[in-house]
């Protein structure tokens, strides 16, 4: 058995400790060790964005971050998006605009959109499209998703 490292991090506001091997990605740690299965594995090589999470305020592909790299860092995943009693405005806008079908890309788009709106509360449509270029959706089509993000920006 390969050596496991003890890592302490903050995930969605909670202090979290876990043991992981160096070769485990943050995505594997979230899904397999911490049962936070919101972030999805699509390509596992940085191209699809299904695994997008926010690390110390920056959008990252969690498949391209090692779990051991996250010691002392702040991680935000889709599980932390909604308040206990209501959805986040970005989630509402996705529902209102029918911006999902199978939903496998949705957690990644939601976190990517959150990182965008945290950074730029009033993006233009081209800004939304370029920002989301690293997130792929194979069934809904991008127009509804882009409209949902623009609606969420207007609502927030």
């Amino acid at each position, binding site marked *: 058995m390969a050596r496991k490292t003890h890592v302490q991090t903050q995930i969605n506001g909670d202090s979290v400790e876990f043991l992981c091997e*160096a070769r485990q990605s943050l995505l594997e740690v979230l899904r397999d060790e911490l049962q936070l299965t919101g972030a999805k594995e699509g390509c596992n090589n*940085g191209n699809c964005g299904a695994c997008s999470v926010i690390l110390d305020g920056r*959008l990252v592909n969690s498949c391209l971050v090692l779990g*051991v790299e996250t010691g002392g860092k702040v991680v935000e995943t889709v599980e932390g998006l909604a308040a206990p009693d209501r959805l986040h405005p970005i989630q509402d806008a996705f529902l209102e605009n029918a911006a999902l079908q199978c939903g496998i890309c949705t957690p990644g788009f939601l976190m990517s959109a959150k990182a965008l709106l945290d950074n730029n509360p009033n993006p233009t449509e081209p800004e939304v499209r370029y920002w989301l270029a690293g997130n792929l959706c194979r069934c809904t089509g991008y127009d509804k998703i882009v409209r949902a993000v623009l609606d969420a920006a207007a609502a927030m």
Partner: protein
Amino acid sequence: MQAFEYVAAQTVPEAVAVLKEKGQQARVLAGGTDLIVQVREAKRDVDWMVDIKAIPEVNVLTHDSQNGLRLGAAVPCYQIYGTESICESFPALVDATKIIGGTAIQGRACVGGNLCNASPAADCIPPLIVLNAICVIAGPGGEKELPVGAFCTGPGQTALERGEMLVALKIPQPSSHSSSYYLRFIPRNEMDIAVVGAGAAVTLDAAQETIVSARIALAAVAPTPLFAEEASALLAGREISDAAIDEAAAAAQAIARPISDMRGTAEQRTHLVGVLTRRALKGAIQRVLDA
């Protein structure tokens, strides 16, 4: 992914010591956007990953008109295009950092990692060449400097020797009436690897009619990114004109030795060198005129 050991080095000597002891079995981990993919796909056999991101020297980002730019090897792309004075003085590097991957990749991927990965198609390397970047390298024997044009020695191969790592890139402040431009051809708007890339830097005279000097560099048309020396030299002292730019483009085409692969044929690539060299030169000149 294969099992490996992870070390978060706190100092340059600590990283160098591991790299020296483990040799080929150790790799520096910067943003990981190349390395993690390569290890996962078993394209690289690595027993040790030496994370350098906690080392202060590799996170330095300073710029002033006296000393130029000092860019730590682990500074991610978004910090480059997010710094206004860099956008003003080194626009070709900004052009490249804005097109590497998407937002999430740019949050992690470093210019230093792009250089050390030494892909023939790496987008940051032509800008570094035309901007006269110098590599600051640390190793068991201390620190040394190497012009970026001598850094890549083949696809995925660099001049780094056992125990050595890139600490920073130093880019001199361009003189007045200078600017630069980088662009690439890809079949879509974003998220793709260059079929061909071309960068240019120009310095004009005060009247902005004559080219004092120019530098042109190309990506994805040879085993390493290329400095187009003759094409660059023949522009020195020439009045700005389509004829001069066409001559430089033809000279750049003459040094391209592209291959045919799934991204494009050799013939298409050679054609693109001409088109992109012209556009890069005109783009750089226009930026001087607009400043």
